[in-house]
């Protein structure tokens, strides 16, 4: 772990994360406020804000928790909202399989959407030798560390400040803008742009689906559309 900290890629990962951190921090702040405003006790809000570490599943779980829904329903909802991470783990698998199981679980826990996207953008291919794998993990550690600190720190701050920051300020929208910036950085060809357009539209059309399944449906539709077009047009395969 210490050797990760010393690696220059650790710094690079941290810097890349810092660019997205202000939006994430504002989002975490609003999440802290939202948890308290929903009627959770301060201790519950602090615990949720520090350990669950998945904003969308927290957002989905809070109302269910407050109406006393059965535990399995809340956990199943959290799982569905988190389904995209299952896809990410399939993608990242070759990067981490040389690690022992507990380290794989730890690295999975800390790899959020933003870290996944930034990591894949920097390292389109798994490391071929020990030095490359070390560099990749150092980048991931630096990146996830900054994201975690921004998110948890500001969630806790939000719980504390809940009585002073009105939800009506709409600071949470900064989180959406952070995601937008990352989306823009991924538009490297026309099919990618199409993927975003199709998924965005499908997510709106399918919005009424329960458990935020509209997001999973939208991803599936966009990927199928792009793969079909890719095949028929025989587009040059470019790298991520």
């Amino acid at each position: 772990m210490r050797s990760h900290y010393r690696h220059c890629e650790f710094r690079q990962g941290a810097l890349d994360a810092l660019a997205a951190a202000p939006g994430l921090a504002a989002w975490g702040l609003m999440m802290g406020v939202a948890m308290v405003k929903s009627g959770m006790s301060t201790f519950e809000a602090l615990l949720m804000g520090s350990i669950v570490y998945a904003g969308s599943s927290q957002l989905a779980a809070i109302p269910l928790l407050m109406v006393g829904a059965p535990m399995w329903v809340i956990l199943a909802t959290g799982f569905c909202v988190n389904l995209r991470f299952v896809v990410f783990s399939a993608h990242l698998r070759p990067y981490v399989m040389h690690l022992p199981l507990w380290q794989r679980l730890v690295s999975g826990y800390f790899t959020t959407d933003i870290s996944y996207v930034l990591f894949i953008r920097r390292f389109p291919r798994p490391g071929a030798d020990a030095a490359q794998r070390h560099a990749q993990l150092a980048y991931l550690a630096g990146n996830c560390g900054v994201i975690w600190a921004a998110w948890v720190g500001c969630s806790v701050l939000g719980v504390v400040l809940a009585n002073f920051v009105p939800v009506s300020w709409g600071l949470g929208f900064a989180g959406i803008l952070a995601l937008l910036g990352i989306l823009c950085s991924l538009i490297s060809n026309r099919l990618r742009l199409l993927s975003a357009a199709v998924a965005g539209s499908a997510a709106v059309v399918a919005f009424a689906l329960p458990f935020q399944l509209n997001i999973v449906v939208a991803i599936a539709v966009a990927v199928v559309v792009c793969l079909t077009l890719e095949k028929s047009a025989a587009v040059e395969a470019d790298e991520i």
Partner: protein
Amino acid sequence: MDSTELWRLAVIIGLTVVTVLTRSFFYISSKPWNLPRWARRGLHYAPIAALAAVIVPETVMTQGHLIETWADARLFAVLAGAAWFFWRRGKGQAVLGTIVAGMAVYLPLHMGLGW
């Protein structure tokens, strides 16, 4: 209300386990295993699709319905953020710039005009 209940703590811990399980889903088994080709190609389009699927409804919908007015601060904030990004051509701290430009448009419209 406002009192800590044991079952809620259990749910919160359960949600944490769900976070670990979903994020590590394909890390758990160490059997050799490879994604089929179509799935590998699909992964080129999945991340941007996931981001768009979160961003678009958060921008053009209110409480599950499409907005019916242009007077919504979110639309202009997203346009401003994206415009900044492409003006800078993604160089330097373009993501940070996207957030700042977007919020600079969002906050006056939202808090000033109530959009």
